[in-house]
């Protein structure tokens, strides 16, 4: 599978410092699986009742004030937030929950470092834009729901016919999303360099190898 374009309505979530505890609360980390977290995304905000691992969305009391419970955002694939999105805990479950909900991209003015990396392992593209560009997107979204098109090839985001915003992202990281590559497979191609490094390193720091 490969994806070069992400397209759809953007869900504006006007908040700073959305930490990974909010993206997926602790109680759902007890799963030993890697999938099935979509129903618990933003759990504390999305529902009025307290959920349990194993419960599905339709068994819950929905908070209709929450953006992802309102049309047309229930099926949104692009999330817009402000500063420091994904700060806090290293839980990759946060990226899994966004992915399982259906998000393919998150746009913010900055990201937590660990979360940012986790996204690329799970087909979620984090896009960092300037605060000015983020403001523009929020202002447009405040007028009416906005359709955005994100080209992973030209690294550009377009809104309507006249606004286009370029973004920066490491090519290697981007390639992992475009071609759905697995890191272990890629690194294993360099097995020889790791072995060579380890040999000379173990002679340099023998106490670490006892």
């Amino acid at each position: 599978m490969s994806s070069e374009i992400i397209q759809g309505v953007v869900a504006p979530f006007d908040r700073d410092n959305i930490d990974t505890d909010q993206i997926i609360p602790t109680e759902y980390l007890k799963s030993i699986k890697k999938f099935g977290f979509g129903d618990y995304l933003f759990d504390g905000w999305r529902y009025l009742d307290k959920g349990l691992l194993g419960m599905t969305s339709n068994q819950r009391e929905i908070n209709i004030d929450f953006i992802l419970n309102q049309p047309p955002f229930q099926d949104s694939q692009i999330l817009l937030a402000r500063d420091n999105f994904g700060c806090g805990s290293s839980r990759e479950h946060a990226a899994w929950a966004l992915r399982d909900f259906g998000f393919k991209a998150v746009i913010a003015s900055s990201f937590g470092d660990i979360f940012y990396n986790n996204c690329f392992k799970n087909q979620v593209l984090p896009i960092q834009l300037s605060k000015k560009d983020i403001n523009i997107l929020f202002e447009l979204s405040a007028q009416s729901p906005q359709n955005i098109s994100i080209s992973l090839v030209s690294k550009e985001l377009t809104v309507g016919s006249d606004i286009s915003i370029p973004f920066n992202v490491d090519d290697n990281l981007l390639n992992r999303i475009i071609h759905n590559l697995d890191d272990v497979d890629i690194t294993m191609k360099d097995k020889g360099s790791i072995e060579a490094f380890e040999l000379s390193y173990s002679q340099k720091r023998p106490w670490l190898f006892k």
Partner: protein
Amino acid sequence: MKTLYDKLWDDHLVQTYESKEALVYIDRHYLHEVTSPQAFEGLRHKNLSPWRLNANVATPDHNVPTTRGDSFKAESIEDEISKIQVMELDKNCNEFKILQFDIESKEQGIVHVMGPELGYTLPGMTIVCGDSHTSTHGAFGCLAMGIGTSEVEHVLATQCLKTSKLQNMQVLFQGKPQEGVTSKDIVLHLIKLIGTAGGTGHAIEFAGSYIDSASMESRMTICNMAIEAGAKVGLIAVDQTTLNYVREHSDMTQEDFEHAQNFWTTLHSDEDAIFNKKIIIDVGTLKPQVTWGTSPEMTVDFDENIPNESDVPLDQVENLKLAKMYMGLEKATTLKDLSFDRVFIGSCTNSRIEDLRSAASVIKGQKVSSNIIEAIVVPGSGLVKAQAEKEGLDKIFEDAGFLWRDPGCSMCLGMNPDQLKPYERCASTSNRNFEGRQGNLGRTHLMSPMMAALTAINGIITDPS
């Protein structure tokens, strides 16, 4: 001309790529039950085994109940899903032959407390763990950082982490703190100053005369919370204090120690090293710090007014309103106006022996306030617990009405039976005051062990001096 971070990076660099990414060799990999099951599953799926078994050390900490007593087994965990997770770690460690201090072990503890005291953290190492507070180990002159589960799998399989180099930031803590001000207050103050994104993209090296005189425990508390300032790496140069700690806690032979020491004493930033950001803080003027809101940067002096809408920039008003509403601060001007329901002394930030001594020192002969539903003290590891009991600290706590528990993450996060009920207000020595962190709708105020202990006695925030 190199910073400590640069030196550690260069020393472990296996290879670079055309992009910013590089492959970095990992010396120590800590594992716990929450972020490892999917990684082991990945290994199994690819038919791989751990690259270097001896690099790995595991223990369960997040899910373990803290009222275990003796002869408790993983099977005895009441919560079915917690039990599965702890038993899954047992199963994976057995299958892959990974060293584990399991729930029955005398040494079991929070992985960041247990590792250093058993000598598994040594200066100059690269250390990773599927846990953001891995930055703790930077206190030993290590390059230590939290990683995600896919990276846990990658490190198990390849002994390397694929990552990009961070920028360098230096924080100088100068001076001598006043009575009642601890490493926790100092790091909370830093986070208030630079914000929770202040260190994003950076490795923060802590230095200055305060750090020089600080114990390893205090240094660990500071590096632990580097992540709360946005920096996934926090680190401190190796000095005599580090060497003394390592000599006491590791079982290295004299010969190995001396050999290693020649290298370890080079683990500091060169005098002319260049930092991308630099901050100087005089710790002598600080008061004890307490968080009022739902992010660690929402911190004030313990007796200062809680900020109002007019005190913050326009774009922060909404965040402030939401935080105040969540924390139930409608009627409070200062934190002293709040009455507390629970007290938690523990977590990988503040559950080491020094923390327990400092909490015990202010409560001798006093009783926990009748307004407090429960005040719990949770040592960070089996060894901390044994040491505290040897010193009679458990008696001091119990005589005052605190509950003395078994090691684990406990009320730092709502994953085991120690949790806040909705709207309960907690004085906590942990590191995150996020919404719901200690239990659904619970309200967390972060502070030092001394301040938390005093809050238990008086039911309200109290001047420790």
